[in-house]
């Protein structure tokens, strides 16, 4: 027994040395060639890499495969990745995720994970299913989200209402972005927006702070809304909401002690109209906040080069899928709000999206198997 644990310790030490050597090599690469450029991994490099990883599955069960699949190696790598992430989380403006040591850690984790799944699959039984779900799921996920993501590209596209656009601006390229023609054209049939009712509150004009101080209270500017702030009671007598104009509320403010009534129109204003407040005292007034967007929707038709036309409604949290493309509602003319005459879309091309979803589903089921494992006495 002593001999066995001694051997285990020796192997662990060797593993730490190997990982450290790889990380030092990574630091050297970082120093001499700068941060890792992900584009290097783009097709076909990632497929070649995938092929190399697949070779692990054909390795014979033996010392080499066992060493690659070592459990202590997994623990050391997991700890190292966690420490790298700690660096990422603590040091402002760090570049850990594109640094060579991090990329090499990721790579070692992929090899370790591949080896252990290969080893387990060689002696497969139903008992292994939870293990397979968690580890194969993670492997598929890490590969698609790592080397696979080098094939991903994103573009922004601004489309005017009533017109069709097929040129996009690659995202993340900053000011010198080159507009490129995309294999998709979007026709914006209509852009529409719903807003939450604006809110009313009592504001100190000299400081801009809302009352009561430290615990500001706002109430919804809807018809017949009532509220009490500081020493006034408020009631919304009527509401006007016309196209182009900002919403406006006719507010009655009654000072509780004296019964004095102040009344008048209050509006937050917009690009077309000036704001308006209702004075209560020299410093205090009733003011309206800008209505917050509830939802915004683009009604579109999408054309592809093979002559297909697809109509859809695109919203936040409800993108449109066309082949390997996903089209997201990104923005609009925020100055004009619901009168916006254009809509901004983000287009994401990702050929690895299906393996990614497979990985996610496997891991979700894998997580459920942990309950069953943890439920045993």
């Amino acid at each position, binding site marked *: 027994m002593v001999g066995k644990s001694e051997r285990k310790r020796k192997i662990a030490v060797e593993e730490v040395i190997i990982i450290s050597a790889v990380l030092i090599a990574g630091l050297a690469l970082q120093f001499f060639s700068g941060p890792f450029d992900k584009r290097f991994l783009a097709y076909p490099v990632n497929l070649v890499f995938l092929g190399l990883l697949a070779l692990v599955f054909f390795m014979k069960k033996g010392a080499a495969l066992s060493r690659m699949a070592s459990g202590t190696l997994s*623990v050391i790598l997991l700890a190292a990745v*966690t420490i790298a992430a700690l660096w*990422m989380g*603590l040091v*402002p403006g760090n570049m850990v995720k594109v640094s060579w040591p991090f990329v090499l850690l990721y790579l070692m984790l992929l090899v370790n994970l591949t080896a252990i799944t290969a080893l387990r699959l060689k002696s497969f039984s139903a008992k292994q299913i939870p293990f397979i779900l968690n580890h194969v799921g993670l492997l598929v996920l890490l590969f698609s989200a790592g080397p696979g993501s080098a094939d991903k590209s994103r573009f922004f596209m601004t489309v005017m209402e009533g017109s069709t656009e097929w040129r996009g601006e690659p995202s993340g390229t900053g000011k010198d972005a080159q507009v490129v023609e995309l294999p998709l054209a979007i026709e914006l049939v209509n852009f529409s927006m719903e807003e939450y009712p604006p809110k009313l509150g009592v504001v100190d004009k000299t400081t801009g702070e809302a009352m009561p101080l430290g*615990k500001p209270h706002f109430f919804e500017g809807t018809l017949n809304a009532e509220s009490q702030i500081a020493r006034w009671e408020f009631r919304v007598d009527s509401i006007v909401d016309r196209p182009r104009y900002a919403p406006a509320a006719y507010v009655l403010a009654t000072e509780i002690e004296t019964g004095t009534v102040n009344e008048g129109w209050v509006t937050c204003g917009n690009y077309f109209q000036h704001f308006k407040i209702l004075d209560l005292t020299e410093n205090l007034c009733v003011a309206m906040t800008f209505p*917050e967007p509830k939802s915004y929707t683009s009604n579109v038709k999408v054309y592809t080069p093979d002559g297909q036309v697809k109509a859809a409604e695109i919203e936040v949290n409800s993108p449109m899928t066309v082949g390997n493309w996903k089209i997201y509602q990104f923005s609009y003319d925020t100055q004009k709000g619901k009168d916006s005459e254009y809509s901004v879309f983000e287009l994401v091309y990702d050929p690895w999206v299906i393996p990614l979803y497979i990985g996610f589903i496997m891991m979700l089921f894998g997580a459920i198997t942990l309950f069953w494992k943890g439920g045993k006495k």
Partner: protein
Amino acid sequence: MSWNEFIYFAIGSLLFWISGTILIYTSKGARLGNILILSGIVLFGSFIVGLWIGKGHPPLRTMGETRLWYSFFISIVGFVTYLHWKYKWIMGYSVVVAGVFVFVNLLKPEIHTTNLMPALQSVWFVPHVTVYILSYALLGAATIASFIAIKELKKGEYGLMPLIDNLVYIGLGFLMMGMLMGALWAKEAWGDFWSWDPKEVWAFITAGAYLVYIHARILKFRLNLLLWLLPLAFVLLMITWIGVNYLPAAQGSIHVY
């Protein structure tokens, strides 16, 4: 219903929980104790339901609202664990923690706009947050158990290890589900499953620490060192949940609320 009524439900639930917990320590009152604890849970849950109806959307957005769920879940986790494993202290601990979070909410109510911005309007919203808070509750219980286990270890006792491992497994299961659902949601909302947002980085760190724990357990690492990983992992978890908003590296996170 709104936060104004919280105090009645909170005090009522705490009274049920405290008296129930005292009773389970007596041999005769155990049954009544269980009923009281359960009543406390039901009362507390009914406030959440009422708040949900009153707001018109699930109360899961602000820190105060997540604390509400934490108190709720920790009381359930403590109760179920106590029923299953017969450890009374876990119920006592859960009541204390639930009480702390109840008092934080009473003393520092965070009143926020009730409007839900479009990115938060998703079917993933409720499961993503509740599953995370539930996992925090389980891992919190595992942490307390680990302190007791560290003490017992000096006497050569290992009796708590199965409980700790089970809590960590189930907690990690929920943690992983929360993370995976968050990623699926992120893909729908802004086109990326994962973007190393500060909260994501810390969620990753937390998951990494617990993954190290369960793998090291399988490999039978020495417990006198390994058990300290659980309090450490829980500190990381608390940074993920509460601390992230205050970190300099985390300014501009999409998860700030």
